[in-house]
């Protein structure tokens, strides 16, 4: 795809503007553009004799789908009490809600809520907290450290799931997948490499400094694409590698001359006029709610005690946003791909 950066400037701007939602490091969940949907987070009246699950969540379109399926699953057995968290909510407010509701379990939704909950725990170092299930936060396996009585589901889709998704839509042979990452993500990438190996895919990483220049990122991409001849690139949801400057000056120039499939974790990076993301693989929010509910049922079965050594789970269900034309033009579209992808960008 011959990308003329000048004529495509508008598209690139749109893409980088879309990325503004990633800049806080959290890959903001995907929302359809257009009319703001009416938000409804109404709890059913509590029933006597049931345990209560408190959901600490921003009341936003991004969280509603997860909340809806969570409540549908839990509603037949537990009272669910939703405590809204906004930019002005403080840890004291959460403390008041927990004291009033006496939950058997708490669901903590999104980065800011997690930080408030962490603050609450640190302000009450000897207090007992119910088990917490944390969802929709960035790099949870790191962020959960230091939190007492917490488990949860990571938000980032593992490379292995993304690669399987790529295989489903594209005829391209995927055996070696390149990834450029900052040094701080070395441990994350090592785990991804192990998981990818299960699917007989070699993840080929190149580490760049934590504060990389455009030249270093471009050189690293060149090494992967030209020298290593990887079959695809997997892009980590790291805002520091996805600035407008780096996309313009490092990513696009490399991809302009060597089109290869690029797997991203944010749908804003899949744009029909810019050869960047070939497909975005994202967690399915409704299924995230079901997965969280299953964690809560397991906790209830275990007397609301976290299993020792309990790990953060990985998201099981993904959804795919695919630049169908790019796949069809360059890599070959699988015959039944359109029935399997969740959103086709044309």
């Amino acid at each position, binding site marked *: 795809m011959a990308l003329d950066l000048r004529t495509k400037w508008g598209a690139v701007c749109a893409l980088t503007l879309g990325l503004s939602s990633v800049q806080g490091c959290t890959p903001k969940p995907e929302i359809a553009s257009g009319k703001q949907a009416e938000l409804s987070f109404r709890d059913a009246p509590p029933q006597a004799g049931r345990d209560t699950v408190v959901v600490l969540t921003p009341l936003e379109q991004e969280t509603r789908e997860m909340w809806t399926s969570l409540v549908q699953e839990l509603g037949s057995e537990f009272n669910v009490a939703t405590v809204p968290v906004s930019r002005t909510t403080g840890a004291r407010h959460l403390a008041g809600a927990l004291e009033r509701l006496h939950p058997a379990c708490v669901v903590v939704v999104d980065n800011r809520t997690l930080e408030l909950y962490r603050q609450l725990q640190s302000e009450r170092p000897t207090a007992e907290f119910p088990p917490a299930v944390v969802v929709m936060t960035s790099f949870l396996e790191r962020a959960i450290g230091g939190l007492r009585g917490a488990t949860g589901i990571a938000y980032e889709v593992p490379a292995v799931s993304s690669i399987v998704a790529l295989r489903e839509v594209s005829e391209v042979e995927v055996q070696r997948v390149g990834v450029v990452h900052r040094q701080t993500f070395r441990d994350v990438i090592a785990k991804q490499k192990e998981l990818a190996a299960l699917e007989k895919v070699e993840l080929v990483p190149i580490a760049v400094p934590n504060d990389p220049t455009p030249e270093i990122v471009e050189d690293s991409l060149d090494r992967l694409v030209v020298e290593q001849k990887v079959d695809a690139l997997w892009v980590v949801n790291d805002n520091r590698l996805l600035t407008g400057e780096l996309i313009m000056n490092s990513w696009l120039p490399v991809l302009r001359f060597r089109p290869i499939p690029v797997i991203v974790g944010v749908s804003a990076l899949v744009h029909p006029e810019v050869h960047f993301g070939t497909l975005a693989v994202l967690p399915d929010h409704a299924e995230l709610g079901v997965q969280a509910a299953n964690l809560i049922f397991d906790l209830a079965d275990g007397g609301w005690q976290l299993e020792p050594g309990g790990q953060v789970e990985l998201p099981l269900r993904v959804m795919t946003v695919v630049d169908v034309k790019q796949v069809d033009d360059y890599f070959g579209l699988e015959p039944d791909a359109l029935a399997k992808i969740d*959103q086709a960008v044309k």
Partner: protein
Amino acid sequence: MKSRTEHPRAEQPTRRGRRRALLGLVALLAAAVAAPLGASASPRLYVFATADMRAQAFEKQLEAQLPGVDVTVFSRIHEFEAALAERPDAAIAQRPVLEALGLRPELQGYAAERATERYVLMSANAPVSPGDLTGKTLGVVDILGRKRMDGFVSGVLGVPSPKLKYVTHERDLLPLLQFNAAAAVVLSEAWAKRLREKSEMNLRTTPLGREVGLPAVVFTSAQAKAALDGKIRAAGRGFNDALGVTQWR
């Protein structure tokens, strides 16, 4: 856009969708004037099943084979169970699902003269037998609701059920194995074949002795049966293939 669990936001409302919404409204109004159940222009068929495609695409495929029937696909048991209170004209699900909900199937799907299908245990690298699962976690699609699943799995395995890890679709069983979140998963032989096609993992299967009932149909009234029985029996191959059967009787 009726499938009840997958991404309505991913597609824009179509003219057909708007027209159907209007038709739905008209049907509701008609019902409010006390029309008998099953008398609406388009009989409603609720389907609780999974396919190797998006629920919306699955729904379209089924609907294309049943002209004049309003098909809605559900992929979560809670939603299907709740939706049955709306009294659709007919419902299709695996026979054990219908029976667990207290419904009596009147039409049974068959595949090669069999009304049941084989299930297998699937694991990574080494085969697993039911006896090996003690103290381990088994992945399974929640087709009956958590409270009923222990008994179902125990029946399929022929041994007491181990700890279960629930998912809502067979394709979610593959990540359980990839992430080492389950020692094995239990699923139909047909789905095991599909997962093998998707994955390069060394997936091993162990056939299980007890088979599981294929999809069957319940009707909510005699009129509904009259309207739908013949259509389902005569449905095209696309309909039957999607539901894993070859004929209905």
